[in-house]
């Protein structure tokens, strides 16, 4: 690469970073502005909006509710996703490709379509809109990500680990729990965090299946209808920080699993 193109590439990258982060930083900055009106100039700063968020029992309880849904749906996704991955990673069998495609499908179906489909199906099954329905919809949406990560991890596991375990006296179940599962652990942690974030962030499915109890994104949306307030900026900033921390941690643990296996 010549010097000129290198400079050009750097400039394009810098422009991209500005493009992505300026709106986000605007939003963060406005959360500290001591005025109800969003915009420049900023005459004085305050932490009041954050204080209000933490005193707002509705926001706090909805936050807890969202976390609960995220954890619940993640556990379900991990269980089902690991199960399917182990099934798919085994020997080839008839219909393997079909099962794989069907498993991946929920990840690529547009959210609005799958949300409506879930709503109709839930009614047919007699599932009331609410927590269980949201957990169910989030889990189905997240399973493909778990499967992809676990299948990738399994494909790097030497088959002779299992043979060594069997050779030393382990039956297939013991070999799985004592050798395969620990090997999958970093992948499961990474996939789990990714699922937590996906669920916490989801709006469409939560909106359609949540009934009267909103999740955090749904609450923010409904608050917006009564006008933009810096309180929303404060909530959003907290969410950005939390998800960024979790996301970076997940990314690191995923990267670590490609290196050392412990």
């Amino acid at each position, binding site marked *: 690469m010549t010097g000129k193109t290198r400079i050009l590439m750097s400039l394009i990258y810098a422009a991209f970073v500005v493009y992505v982060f300026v709106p986000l930083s605007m939003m963060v900055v406005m959360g500290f502005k001591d005025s109800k009106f969003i915009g420049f100039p900023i005459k004085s700063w305050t932490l009041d909006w954050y204080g209000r968020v933490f005193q707002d029992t509705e926001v706090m309880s909805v936050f807890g509710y969202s976390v609960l849904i995220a954890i619940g749906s993640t556990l379900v996704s991990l269980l089902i996703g690991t199960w399917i991955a182990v099934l798919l990673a085994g020997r080839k069998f008839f219909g393997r490709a079909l099962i794989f495609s069907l498993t991946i499908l929920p990840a690529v179906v547009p959210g609005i379509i799958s949300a409506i489909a879930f709503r109709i199906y839930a009614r047919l099954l007699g599932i009331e809109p609410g927590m269980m329905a949201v957990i169910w919809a989030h889990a189905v949406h997240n399973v493909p990500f778990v499967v992809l990560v676990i299948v990738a991890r399994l494909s790097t596991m*030497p088959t*002779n*680990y299992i*043979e*060594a*375990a*069997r*050779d*030393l*006296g*382990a*039956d297939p179940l*013991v070999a799985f729990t*004592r*050798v395969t599962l*620990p*090997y999958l*652990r970093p992948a499961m942690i990474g996939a789990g965090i990714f699922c937590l974030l996906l669920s916490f962030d989801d709006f469409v499915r939560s909106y359609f299946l949540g009934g009267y109890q909103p999740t955090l994104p749904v609450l923010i949306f409904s608050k917006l209808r009564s006008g933009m307030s810096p309180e929303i900026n404060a909530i959003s900033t907290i969410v950005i920080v939390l998800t960024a921390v979790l996301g970076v941690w997940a990314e690191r643990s995923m990267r670590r699993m490609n290196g*050392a*296996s*412990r």
Partner: protein
Amino acid sequence: MSQNPDTLVQLQGVSKRFGSVVALDDLDIDIKAGEFVTFLGPSGCGKSTTLRILGGFEKPDTGRVILDGEDVTRLPPNKRKVNMVFQDYALFPHMSVAQNIDFGLELKGMSVSQIEARRQEVMSFLELDEFGSRYPDQLSGGQRQRVALARALAPDPALLLLDEPLGALDAKLRSQVQQELKAIQRRTNTTFFFVTHDQDEALTMSDRIVVMNGGKVEQDGTPEDLYLRPASRFVAEFIGETNLLNGHCLGMEGDEVVIDWLGTPVRARAGGLQPIKGSKVTCSLRLEKLGCVPSRSGSEMGIPAHIANKVFMGSRTAVTVSVDAAPEVLLRAYVDAEMAIGSVGDAVQIDWDSANLALLRQ
């Protein structure tokens, strides 16, 4: 089924095919308790399949596997008193050395104190004492190899399978570990079933070598037998370097066969073979058993030849000679590096002891 009390393992008529490839063709082998047996052969010869059948990782298509008087043909690996040292060791990466060794002991249902005692015993035996809390990725290749051996030996198996366990080590370490392995086998008195494609490993460590080719046994004997008295052309060429002498059978004399080689009658050890008079035969003569001296005028000793090539190799000199009776026939010999053998084109006399010329199965 009569059985020698010393016999630990019997393979009876074992065959295995993978698709259209015959991996093992009606194999019959007995292994004595305490033996160090090596299965030697090129890749695809069936040695690894034999090992995997003994370990329980493959089921033979036909035939039976008897271990310690018990038919284990259909038994899964976890139900067999057989442990294995895997080619790349297959140490569990998430467990420390101690945990790796404990794995098999725990599954044997031993108590915590028994496990502790046995682990210490095995670890001090293999000089691993200070590595108990290390993880496999913190160990060198040689250390990992010892841990794999410790893990497989800890449950006190009746038969230990070793699947080319030295392949991952560098050449210098390998020869050292060869000696160690042999010493360990002698001290534990465990039966070792060793699989390799490396003839040096096989020759230095084994009590007995089974040379495999195409799913069949080529020869089964001591390292000395195989090297000095190869039974077939395959064995002669696979193990060590050799000269092949082609001729016609003139007849038998006791347990020797007389061969017309380039018009000269020579004697070879028949080794139980009885070729038909007039048939084509091939004999093997090891390079170091072919004598080669400078010709002196009037000497009637040996067969006249000329030096075609000469390579100094340090401890010895490799000489290629062209036989005068048929200049296209080239034989190779090792001679003492300090012997004044002459230079390329000089006349020499070659000869050998008839006991070292081994008739090969066609």
